[in-house]
C-alpha cells in the first residue's frame, strides 16, 4: 500500500507540476503582418502626361495586392503634367482630370501649389505634412510603418445619391477608439475608378497609351482640401465619443456615379498624421 500511496502522490503532484508558458513581448511572430483595421491614405500626385507616373500606379497596385482594403489611394492630377490639349475629344490628352483641390495642393501648370514645386511622381503616405513628400519607391516602407498600428478612430460613411438632382450626400460618423487629446480634422473627397483615357508611359512603346485605366482619381472635395476641424486639442476624446457630419455636393457631368467612391479621413491638425481613413462606394 505504501507503493500505491507513493504512486498516487507522484501522479497528483505530476499534474501540479505540469505548468504553463509565459510569453514575453514581442507577442507577434517575426516577419508577419498583423492588421488591426487602420487604413492607410496615400496621396499620389500624378498627371496623365507624366511618363513615370505609371510606376507609382504600379506601386499602388502592388500595395493593394498586399494590403487590399487597408490602402486607400487618391490620385491627384496636378502640375503641368495634368495639362490638357484642348476640348476636342478625338485628340489625345483632351480629358481634364484636374480639380480645384488638386490645383491648390499640387499646383496648376507652372504655378506651384501648397506643396511647392512637385517632381512627379511623388506622394504622401498617411501624413499630409510638406516634409513628408516621398518618392513612390519609399511608399511600401512607409505603409509598413503604419499598417500594424491601431486605428485611433473608426469612420462610418453613409452615402446617398439622388438621380433626380445629381446630389451626392455623405453622412460621416467618426468614433473614438483610443483616448486622446488631439486636434483633429475630417476631410471628405469623392474619387472615381476605371476612367479609361490617355496616359503617357515611358516604359511603353509607343509611350502614349490611349486606353489607360486611371484609378482612384480625385473628383472633388465635400469640405475643401483640409476638411473641417471636428475636435480641438483642449478636449480629451474618450473611447466611444462620436462626431457626426453631413456633406453634399453635385455630381460632375462626366462622372460615372457607379464607379465613384466617397473617401473620408481624419488627421491630426498639429502633426498632419492621418489617423484613419475609410472608403465606400456611392452606389
Amino acid at each position, binding site marked *: *500500500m505504501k507503493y*500505491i*500511496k507513493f*504512486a*498516487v*502522490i*507522484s*501522479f*497528483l*503532484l*505530476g*499534474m*501540479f507540476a*505540469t*505548468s*504553463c*508558458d*509565459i*510569453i514575453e*513581448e*514581442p*507577442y*507577434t*511572430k517575426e516577419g*508577419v503582418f*498583423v492588421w*488591426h483595421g487602420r487604413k492607410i491614405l496615400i496621396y499620389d500626385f500624378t498627371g496623365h502626361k507624366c511618363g513615370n507616373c505609371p510606376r507609382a500606379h504600379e506601386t499602388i497596385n502592388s500595395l493593394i495586392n498586399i494590403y487590399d482594403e487597408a490602402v486607400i489611394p487618391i490620385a491627384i492630377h496636378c502640375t503641368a503634367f495634368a495639362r490638357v490639349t484642348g476640348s476636342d475629344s478625338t485628340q489625345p490628352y483632351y480629358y481634364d482630370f484636374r480639380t480645384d483641390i488638386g490645383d491648390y495642393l499640387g499646383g496648376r501648370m507652372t504655378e506651384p501649389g501648397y506643396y511647392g514645386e512637385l517632381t512627379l511622381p511623388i506622394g504622401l503616405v498617411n501624413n499630409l505634412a510638406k516634409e513628408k513628400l516621398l518618392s513612390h519607391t519609399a511608399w511600401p516602407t512607409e505603409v509598413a510603418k503604419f499598417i500594424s*498600428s*491601431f*486605428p*485611433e478612430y473608426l469612420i462610418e460613411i453613409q452615402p446617398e445619391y439622388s438621380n433626380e438632382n445629381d446630389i451626392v450626400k455623405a453622412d460621416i460618423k467618426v468614433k473614438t*477608439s*483610443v*483616448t*486622446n487629446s488631439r486636434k483633429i480634422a475630417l476631410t471628405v473627397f469623392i474619387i472615381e475608378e476605371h476612367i479609361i483615357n490617355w496616359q503617357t508611359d515611358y516604359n511603353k512603346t509607343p509611350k502614349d497609351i490611349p486606353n489607360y485605366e486611371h484609378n482612384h482619381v480625385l473628383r472633388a472635395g465635400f469640405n475643401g482640401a483640409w476638411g473641417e476641424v471636428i475636435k480641438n486639442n483642449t478636449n480629451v476624446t474618450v*473611447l*466611444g465619443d462620436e462626431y457626426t457630419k453631413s456633406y453634399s455636393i453635385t455630381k460632375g457631368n462626366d462622372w460615372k456615379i457607379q464607379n465613384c467612391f466617397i473617401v473620408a479621413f481624419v488627421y491630426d491638425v498639429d502633426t498632419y498624421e492621418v489617423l484613419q481613413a475609410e472608403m465606400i462606394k456611392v452606389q
Partner: protein
Amino acid sequence: MKKIFTLFLNLAGLGIFSLLAQENTENNSGQITGNFQTDAQYYIEDQSIGATAVKEYMLVNSWANFIYSNQNFSAGFRYEGYMNTLLGYPNSGGINDGIGIPFRWAMFSKDDLEITVGNFYEQFGNGLVLRSYEEKMLGVDNALDGFRIKYQLFKGINLTGLIAKQRYYWNHGPGIIRGFDGTIQINEVFQSLEESSLRLNIGGSFVSKFQHEGHPLYNLPDNVAAMSGRIMIRYKNFDINSEYAYKFNDPSLDNSYIFKPGQALLINTSYAKKGLGIVLSTKWVDNMAFRSDRNASLTDLNINQLPEITKNHIYVLPAFYPYATQPNGEWGAKAEIMYKIPKNTLLGGKYGTNVSLNYSRAHDIKKTQINDSTPVFPPASGTYGYNTKFFSIGDKLYFQDINFEISKKWSKKILSNFSYVYLIYNYDVLRGITGHGNVYAHIGIVDMTYKFENSSALKTEIQHMFTKQDEGSWVLGMIEYSLPGWFFTVFDNWNYGNPESKKHYYSIGFGHISGGTRIQLSYGKQRAGVMCIGGVCRNVPASNGVFVSISSTF
C-alpha cells in the same frame, strides 16, 4: 522529457488500477440503476412570431444513463441521440446531431483512494478554474474524458488529480487538461479543533491546459495555467466562502488574443438563524474565460465556470432578461434578506409570512490603455490588451435586479406568493449586439394556490411586465390544475405592449407522473429569447408546435 513524463503517468495510472482491481476478489452480482429522458417537438411554421418548421417535422433529444454498481466498483454509460437536435440547442452545422455513447466510465474505490477512468465531471472549489458539468437545458456538456484520482492523504486532507480531454459534441476538444486540487479541513486535521464552533477549510487548485500553438501571427503559449486559493470560515451563524483565481496569459478568441493574465475574486457571506437569512456576495472578474480550445466560443469547451450571483428567476416574465456572465470583465454584488414574520402576529398570521428582498447589480470593470496608441475596445489583438486595477468598478451598468417577494399561507387550503421585480438590463452587452440600449422592466406577480379536499389543487399565476423598451409590455395568465398523478396547464403570454404586433403566446398541456416516470404533452407557442442557467446562456428560438417529454428512472 515530455514523453518520459507521459509514460510515467500512464504506467502509474494503469498500474495502480490493476493492483486495486486484483484486490477486488469478492463476487457480487451488484445492481443496475439508470434513467431515461426524451424531449420531442413537432414544429409548425408561424410567421406571426417568426417560428419556423423543420424538414424533419419533429426533432428529438434523448438520453439514457445506465450505472452498474458492485461494492467498491461502479461503471456506466450514457446513450444519447439527437435526431435531430431541438432548435436552439448548440448545433452549429449539425455538429450535435447523431446517436452514440459519448459518456462512459468506470470507477473503483478502495480505502482512501478513488480512481475514475473514462468520462467524469469535476469541480474545483467554486469552479473559477475548473468546472466540468452537464446541463441538458442549455445543451452544455463539457465532460472530461481521461483519468482522475482522488485520495485522502490524511483525515481532513483530500487531493484530486486529473488528466483528460474535454467532450466536444461527439468528439474531443483539441486541448489536454491537467488539474490538481487539495482541500484541508482544519477541524478534522487537528483533533483539538474537532468540536470548535469555528470551522475552517482551505483549498487550492491548479489547472493547466495544453494546446499546440500553431498560430500564423502570434507567439501563443502551448500551456496555459490557472490557479486558485479558497477559504471557508464558519462561525456559529456566520459563513464566509471566498476564492481568488489567477490565470496566466491565455490569448484566445474570447479576449481577442490579448496576453494579459486574468483574475477573479468571489466572496459569499451569509448569516442564518431561525426565521432570518442574510446573504451578501460580490465577485470581480477580469479576462477569465478559460477553454480547452482557444478558438472555441459560445458554450463550447469551457474549463471553468464563473458563478453568477444574480437571482435565477423561476417565473416566466422576469426570466425574459437573465444575466449572462461576462468573463472579459465584470463586477457584481448581491444582497439578500429572507425573513419569516412569526406566526400568530399581525403580519405573520396563523402560519407566518415569508418575505425576501433581493438586490443585485453588475458593472463593467475599469480598463485603461496600455499606451497612447493602443485601444482598449475592441481589445488590441497581439498586445497585452489593457491595464486594470484589481477590483476596479467601471461606470457602465450591465444589470440590476431589485425584487421583493412575500409568500403567505392563508389557511390550509390557500397559499400565495406575491412578487415585484425591477430589472435594468443592458441589452447590448448581455446579448452581444449594438444599438438596442437598456431595458427597464417593472414586473408584478401574483401566484395563488387553492388546495381541494381530494388532494387536488388549483394554481393560478398572473404576471405583468411593464416596459417601454424591447418588445414592450407583457401580461401572462396561467392556470394549473393538479391531482395525484396528473396535472393540466393552460397559459397565455400576451405581448400587448408591442408597437408592431400584439402577439399571443399561449400553451395548453397536461402531464402524468407515476412512480419514477413523468410524461408531459403540450401544445403552444414560445417567444424567441435567451435562457440562462448559472450565467451561461443559449438562444431560444420562437416556436410553435407540440412538445412531448418523457422521463423515467429505475
